[in-house]
């Protein structure tokens, strides 16, 4: 995959450039809708709801560097992670691997619980606390998920990046990290903060910490083999598609919290 060399050092959200094609239309062609959005009512073209035309794009001043890391991550996946995860997948059944995934997720409860509290989401915090209190003793230390299966208590995927978002901080700009993948400035700071809430951080030896994190990554990948390949099949520029998907998904998660 070619790495685009042309840097786009835009210093703002470039919706203006993006929408320049609509500029010639007179203001009266835009009508306010009941929900406050604007809708195009002109004769020349059918209407576009406003949020699609003026969608906020994420700034990407480090695009050339990000693309290099994207390329490295892409190779890492195909040359290292995928072969290892495929071998692992052949040895352990899906039930076991989902159990391992649940176990790591159960350990990481403090991250989700504290962030629910920081977002003043007490229902979410209660859900996370209950999930931990049910799954640890009755679900083999979190390998099983009776809280979800028996009580319909869904996990609340909250993290500090989202909390900052709820507090009103924007993503600043996009970042692609080696190994860690898609992020932005806000979520990177959040990730670092979340490390303090992650019990694995407090294990005494560094090789054990890194080993556990690596194992978790291999286990997660073994449950998602083929997804990245499928994604690459449907997109024309995987870097941009991944960047936009990350940005939209994060905005959605911040907005949809309950």
């Amino acid at each position, binding site marked *: 995959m070619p790495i685009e060399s042309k840097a786009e050092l835009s210093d703002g959200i470039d919706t203006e450039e993006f929408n320049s094609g609509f500029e010639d239309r007179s203001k009266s062609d835009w009508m306010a809708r009941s929900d406050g959005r604007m809708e195009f009512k002109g004769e*020349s073209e059918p209407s576009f709801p406003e949020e699609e035309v003026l969608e906020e794009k994420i700034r990407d001043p480090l695009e050339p560097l990000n693309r290099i890391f994207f390329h490295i991550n892409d190779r890492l996946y195909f040359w290292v992670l995928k072969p290892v995860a495929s071998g692992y997948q052949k040895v352990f059944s899906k039930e076991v691997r989902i159990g391992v995934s649940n176990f790591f997720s159960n350990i990481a409860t403090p991250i989700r619980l504290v962030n629910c509290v920081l977002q003043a989401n007490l229902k979410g915090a209660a859900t996370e606390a209950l999930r931990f209190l049910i799954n640890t003793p009755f679900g083999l230390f979190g390998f099983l998920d009776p809280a979800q299966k028996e009580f319909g208590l869904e996990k609340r995927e909250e993290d500090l990046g989202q909390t900052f978002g709820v507090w009103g901080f924007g993503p600043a700009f996009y970042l692609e990290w080696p190994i860690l993948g898609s992020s932005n400035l806000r979520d990177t700071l959040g990730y670092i903060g979340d490390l303090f809430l992650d019990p694995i951080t407090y294990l005494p030896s560094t090789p054990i910490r890194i080993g556990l994190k690596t194992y978790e990554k291999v286990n997660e990948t073994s449950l998602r083999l083929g997804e990245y390949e499928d994604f690459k099949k449907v997109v024309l520029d995987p870097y941009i598609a991944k960047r936009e998907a990350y940005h939209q998904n994060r905005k959605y998660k911040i907005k949809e919290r309950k």
Partner: protein
Amino acid sequence: MSLIRLWILFLLLFGMTTPLFSGEPQEQLQQTTDKVLAILSDPNLKSPEKAKERRELILRVVDERFDWEEMARRCLARHWVQRTPEEKREFIHLFKELLQQVYMDKVEAYSWNKIQYEGETIDGNYGTVKVKIFTSKEQPIRVEYRLLKKGPHWLVYDFSIEGISMVNNYRTQFNEIIVKSSYRELIKRLKTKVSQP
């Protein structure tokens, strides 16, 4: 334990918003998904030699509900008006091929355990329908369909999966390719994609 159950029941009730009735967009979308699910679960169409027939049946059902031109137009956005009618036709065709290739694989591969309707909004000719799709995987997938009313029909012109809008995502990619190279280059890349499944 019964106390916990009561507590949880309370939490669940607290968070529940069940629509008392469903409007036209959801009704029509539901007809389409029900038809697709019926085809997928039809034992007569399960054998490998029937795979092609089954796919065509599904495509016909999906075709009735999806407005490919509207999707293509929104994905090209400001570049759409600069296209000749022939270019538009070619683009719609390629775009449809690309989407069908991908999403048909997904539709056929997944075990659709349940589709739960989570509510709809109607604003003039625009509508959204939210659904939660339960597959064999752990977490349900949240999908929002966007529909536009044309005559008596509500037609899908975009959908977003976990907040990622299909139209938005393609529009950004298409725009970058056109701006950095050309429209021709975009068509070239689309053709390569569609020809290699």
